[in-house]
């Protein structure tokens, strides 16, 4: 069954309230969100395997802290799309603003267009696939998970990286502190192939470079002269 929330007249509160409490008891398996008009906090805190279609642009934190739900935004989104996501899938058909997928613990975030600054900041296990390019300081302090960038990366990619791995198809303007380019292994090709397929992109995995942590900042070092 399908249920539609028209945000031109209705409120984000009613939408989220239904997703949190009404949904589980209903037979609704698909929720249409009409006229989102850049509203913030659309479909946040969902914990149910539901298909949510957002028909237009979203504001900040679309799909924030998502668990289980599959959320598709037919437009662009503001800051922090799928922030702290645990599981499920969030797909942005357009572009994403800053901090896409910030501190995400799991699930998959697909941005078909470009993502702005700090994409994947503090990510903790989420997989992010960006069809276009990402802005500066993406994957800053990224702890776990994968960030696949089909386009180019801006300045300071992967600054202060922990164990997250970044794959870049295009040009990297610069790497951040402690991030280094490493040779692709068979496991990397398989991973990129799997992530591209999950995202619905058809690039060849052999076109990607691997960026991971040099692990030089894992321990205090008096001789580093604060160069980090």
């Amino acid at each position: 069954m399908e249920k539609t929330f028209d945000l031109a007249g209705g409120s984000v509160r009613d939408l989220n309230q239904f997703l949190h409490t009404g949904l589980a008891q209903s037979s609704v398996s698909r929720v249409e969100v009409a006229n989102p008009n850049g509203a913030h906090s659309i479909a946040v805190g969902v914990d149910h395997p539901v298909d949510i279609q957002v028909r237009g642009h979203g504001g900040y934190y679309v799909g924030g802290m998502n668990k289980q739900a599959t959320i598709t935004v037919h437009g662009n989104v503001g800051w922090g799309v799928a922030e702290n996501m645990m599981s499920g899938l969030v797909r942005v058909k357009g572009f994403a603003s800053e901090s896409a997928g910030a501190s995400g613990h799991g699930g998959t975030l697909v941005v078909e267009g470009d993502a702005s600054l700090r994409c994947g900041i503090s990510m903790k296990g989420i997989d992010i696939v960006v069809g276009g390019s990402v802005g500066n300081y993406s994957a800053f302090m990224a702890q776990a998970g994968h960030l696949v960038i089909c386009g180019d990366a801006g300045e300071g990619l992967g600054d202060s990286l922990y164990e997250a791995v970044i794959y870049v198809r295009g040009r990297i303007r610069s790497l951040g502190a402690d991030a280094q380019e490493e040779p692709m292994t068979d496991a990397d090709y398989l991973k990129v192939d799997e992530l591209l397929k999950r995202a619905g992109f058809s690039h060849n995995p052999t076109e990607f470079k691997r960026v991971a942590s040099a692990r030089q900042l894992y321990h205090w070092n008096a001789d580093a002269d604060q160069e980090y």
Partner: protein
Amino acid sequence: MNKPLEHAVHAPKRVSREESAGFDRRTIDYIQNAAAHGLYEIRGLGAKRRVPHFDDLVFLGASVTRYPLEGYREKCHTKTVLGTRFAKKPVELAIPITFAGMSFGSLSARVKEALGRAASELGTSTTTGDGGMTQEERRSSKTLVYQCLPSRYGFNPDDLRKADAIEVVVGQGAKPGGGGMLLGQKINPRVAKMRTLPEGIDQRSACRHPDWTGPDDLVIKIQELREITDWQVPIYVKVGATRVYNDVKLAVHAGADVVVVDGMQGGTAATQTAFIEHVGIPTLAALRQAVEALEEMDMRGKVQLVISGGIRTGADVAKALAMGADAVSVGQGALFAMGCNHDSYWQDGAWHSAEAGYEQLGTAPGFCHHCHTGRCPVGITTQDPLLELRLDPARGAAHLKNYFKTMNMELTTLARACGKSNVHHLEREDLVALTLEAAAMAKLPLAGTNWIPGAGGL
């Protein structure tokens, strides 16, 4: 030519101990330590230097025009409600003294459990910290405040929905502008897993939130947290005391139910000494600025104010409330109550000396601030499986309960002496300052005068 006096020539050899004010022994030690290691000192606890504080205030008590209440016969209420502005379920506490946020990681799970047990028995709240919510503390805590920190370590929607209040941490009094630190020796497998970090690394967590910057974003972030939790629980905003007047106004504007202001004496488990001692303003000054901000916005009583940073005694609590706080938070005091800096620890039914442990750390009971090492000789700030056994959760909880009960009795004693049947009726008029600095910072008259330095000018 002057000749030395004969008795001076034969006097015992004199040792000169003319200490320099600028290069005193502490400074010489600092320089030599820096020279030896090439790395700044990191330590735990809060600012050690003397700053104007609640000790510099006294209550006026009753007089001919103010009559007191009987100590044992007349009631003095301490009930405290936080988060009445937007939350459907405000936090109701039996006393205005709460436990401050301290992480699992900096503290052992047993200590977190002790805090939770004590808080539940006292009818007050305890707070998570930079490292997520443990099952031990959720189980043991009736009222648990869940922090949303820049690092977002262990932050997840399931725990968020289990929280009785959410605290968005912008800063901490010990290090406003700095992120968390946890050195490798404390990143054991469980801590590492909760924080999604490799075991044994020296963790430096983020100092800014990953998905918002500035007051306008904070409005939207708070709205998101409310949407996720269906507007049920209060949302606190915690700031380290710097530009308090502006920060409080911005937090209120952003939609906070409660503002928590942490002064420079606030503690930490690991921060650079330079940061602890040289960034932020004293709790006394911060409190007055916070109250002024709320009053100017006509938000006193609508947005509650919690003050922390060096609260030690019932007198401190009473003075904080009189100056306009709705509640206080205690962190370091709670650690001391459980035995931090004690010369012995209690294990298996007997006292054992902890002196050797302090000696290994190069310190002694009463001076220890080595929380960052994870080698706490009394088993509090540690993740070591043997050391942590030195703190029994039930015994720790009993000490915490005694300490908080003592403070609460002191608080009501002082309130009654000022003629108040409710501790929240204590008022600025009940206080005067003993020093010029405290008078100026608290904007209270210097004792015995009507003079408030700076009032009406500057």
